[in-house]
């Protein structure tokens, strides 16, 4: 994997911001006892495409702000969060939020080490202490009350105080990146107190051109004409979901990429799309609608040799 900064240069991201990233890396490089955390730096298998979003995100992180990435499905929220950690070369803690999340899940809880009761730190505590990037995935799945413990961590105080234990200051390199989607079942609005502690970035849907580039980068041997058809297929499914004719289940960029991986292995496009895209929805009527869209773009028996050179 080449350095992500090279990719950002190609994306024509403002060089001033890239200099800022380099300075950040130099200032907070993992050395000595921190070497063990290198395994936590994400590999950035998928790269986020979109110059404007990159520039906004880099500026927020360089300014010491926490970032909240909002947007519907398949807009690349998690990809960008991972890419940011990779870009700044900081270890990442991925924390998936759910309705039963509480303070002990995030900060830590009492535990017994065989002799005495000790504090077992949670991911937020570790991230804050080690200067990592905490990725708060689907942050609005948790109850707002449970998230109140994060307030002092996320605002200007930058500290965590656990009653009965020590108080720590948040490492200057630590950042928290929340992701959220209003549409999912079980999600709720984030309260004002929490949302005011983030710089909020609305993630746009991926554009045709960016999706073309993404596919070209992931599947360099794919024929250009076929690639365009897959891009349009995704845009058409997106349009159908936006028009509320189908749910967002089938609007799955990962699914599309997985389908192409399967065709690379020799499976026909129809079968691969059936497995990775159409069957993502469990409603048979909805599957029919999605199948109609697929059939109007990609013939069912399109073979691997027709897709790739």
């Amino acid at each position: 994997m080449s350095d992500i900064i090279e990719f950002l240069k190609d994306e024509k991201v403002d060089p001033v911001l890239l200099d800022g990233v380099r300075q950040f890396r130099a200032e907070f490089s993992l050395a000595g006892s921190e070497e063990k955390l290198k395994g936590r730096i994400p590999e950035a298998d998928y790269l986020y495409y979109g110059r404007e979003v990159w520039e906004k995100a880099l500026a927020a992180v360089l300014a010491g702000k926490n970032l909240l990435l909002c947007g519907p499905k398949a807009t690349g929220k998690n990809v960008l969060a991972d890419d940011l950690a990779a870009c700044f070369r900081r270890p990442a803690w991925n924390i998936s939020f759910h309705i039963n999340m509480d303070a002990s899940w995030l900060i830590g809880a009492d535990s017994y080490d065989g002799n005495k009761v000790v504090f077992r730190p949670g991911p937020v505590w570790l991230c804050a202490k080690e200067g990592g990037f905490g990725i708060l995935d689907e942050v609005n799945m948790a109850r707002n009350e449970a998230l109140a413990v994060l307030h002092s961590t996320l605002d200007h105080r930058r500290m965590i105080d656990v009653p009965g234990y020590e108080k720590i200051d948040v490492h200057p390199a630590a950042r928290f990146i929340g992701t959220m989607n209003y549409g999912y079942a079980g999600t709720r609005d984030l309260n004002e107190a929490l949302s005011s502690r983030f710089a909020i970035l609305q993630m746009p849907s991926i554009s045709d051109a960016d999706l073309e580039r993404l596919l070209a980068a992931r599947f360099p041997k794919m024929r250009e004409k076929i690639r365009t058809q897959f891009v349009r297929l995704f845009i058409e499914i997106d349009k159908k979901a936006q028009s509320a004719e189908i749910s967002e289940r089938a609007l799955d960029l990962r699914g599309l990429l997985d389908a192409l991986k399967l065709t690379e292995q020799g499976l026909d496009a129809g079968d691969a799309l059936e497995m990775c895209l159409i069957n993502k929805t469990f409603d048979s009527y909805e599957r029919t609608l999605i199948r109609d869209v697929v059939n109007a773009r990609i013939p069912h028996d399109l073979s691997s040799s027709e897709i790739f050179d």
Partner: protein
Amino acid sequence: MIKHHYEKASRRALNIIWNAAGRYDFDPCFMAFHSNGQADDYFNTIIGLTDKWLDLTEIAAFFSSYAAHPKAGEFDEFLWLGIEDFVYERELPERPALANMRKLRGEEFFKIQQTLSEQQMTMQSMPVYRQQQTRWAEVTGRHLPLLNTREKRMSETLRFSSNNTAGMDVPSKSADTEHVIRIMRVFLQEYFRYDPVADPRIKKELRGWKAWYSRLASQDYRQKDILLIRTGSGLGDPANAVAVRWEGRRAPQHSEKLDAENRAYIESLFGPCRFTETELQQAESLLCTGNDTGCRLWFVNAAAKQAGNARFGMALSDGAREERPHHPDPEIADTLQRMQIQYKNNRRFLQEHRMMINESIKKLSSELEVLLSSFSRGLPENGRTGHLVPEKAYRISLLHDPLVFVREGDVREMHLRVDILLDASQSRMNSQERIASEGYMIARSLLQNHVPVSVTAFRSLRGFTVLEELKGPDDTDCNGILHYYAGGWNRDGLALKAMHYLYNEKDRQPADDLRLLLILTDASPNDTVAGSSFGKNYEGAAAVEDAAAAVKSLRADGVRTAAVFHGSASHLENVYRIYGKEYIRVFSLQQFSGSVADLLQMVLRESGS
């Protein structure tokens, strides 16, 4: 092959069309189905692409221009073959998969032909069949049929793409549309000696499909629209799916005699009005004013309807034979029989989905129980006993104020009454079983929580807006809801005003704390009777505003009004305009109970606050 819009609506066909067109905000004038009722994916794609490459409104106007011709169906089939050729060539570079779809469609054509009986073959138009056969043989690489000179020339003319004399490198939508319309005219003139523009039967200019359709469906014709009920299931044969049928000739002007005829027609279909003549006149003089001047009302209660059914010998029990109701007017007898069949379809649907429906009722009942119990509990209040509020403790000694405690609110007696209003217009024809089941599910769930609930269907027909009670507030049996069927128009504003009127009746005025009116609607009001604010018809933005004003008036009188919406995305703005945010959109029966619970929670919470 291609059926006119309103004969059969299918969500799938619409989706294919919208997808190909690249937009979801229009109602196509054509949809294509196979003879088994399934959507024809290739031809629906072609219809969608026609919108993309040509001006569909202009094309539809041309098709409409010869609608009165006896061979209109045949012309449609010829011309769509031509359009197919044109848009196929235009789209192919952008959508290579279209070639595969076209080939499959060709194979399907020959496969279907092999299964047709001799009778079915003889019913086909042979000239159309020969052209189709030629087209699909070319596409699939089969031997071409032997054609005579005229047929060969016809086949050449139907290659609209090769007849493109516009000769432009960059296609222009308007020039292409003009070109296609020109060839279509030439085709009809040359092979059928027919020019739609010069046809004396249609003294009109081609000023767009909408204008023409609006004239066709105008007030002058309203006296002759006939209530017909779909005979097939939701996915049945579109040939049997009939919406509103128009008499070919112009109806006589409004007269007392006609009014009496219409009234007799309405009474025969729906049973006697629950009001006396004087009461009905009072209601009409109050309600049929302003936008609804010239409209009539008809109120039917469940008991009268049952009596009416028995009067004509309508057998509605499960095991009963489907005997034709013995009404002297064959048209009414036919309609009554269709009602009878729809009742059985509704019952069958309920039976077939009973597991899911029972589960939904159980789920909705339990959610309602929690909702109603929390609604009936008051908010915590200050009191002399309870939990001490420390920051108020100083008030005891300083101000001698003993109210420094907070205690749980008392459970208050709450009366909730729910009325469900079902849109029963012809646009609901393909969802009749589902709507009946949804009404049934809500009513049963509310009854299980001891909430009185009534269910009423409304539709407008021959100038009468009919409110037909399917289940009275005191009925404990919900089976009456299965008498729901769709047909006619929907004048939402007047129906809502009529419900408002009923609320003010003496027998509906107990000391209810809360009255809730729930409307199952597609938020697309339209009627053939115009009003003062409308041009020819009650439709469009003015009709939406009229309905919104009726909802506003209901709410001002304390009636909580909310909607369960299942209609097309293009009507989402209407539903918001009429009901504000107090609506939910339902896509499937599975999500129905959860969505309704959310809606009721929203409404009750707002009432509580």
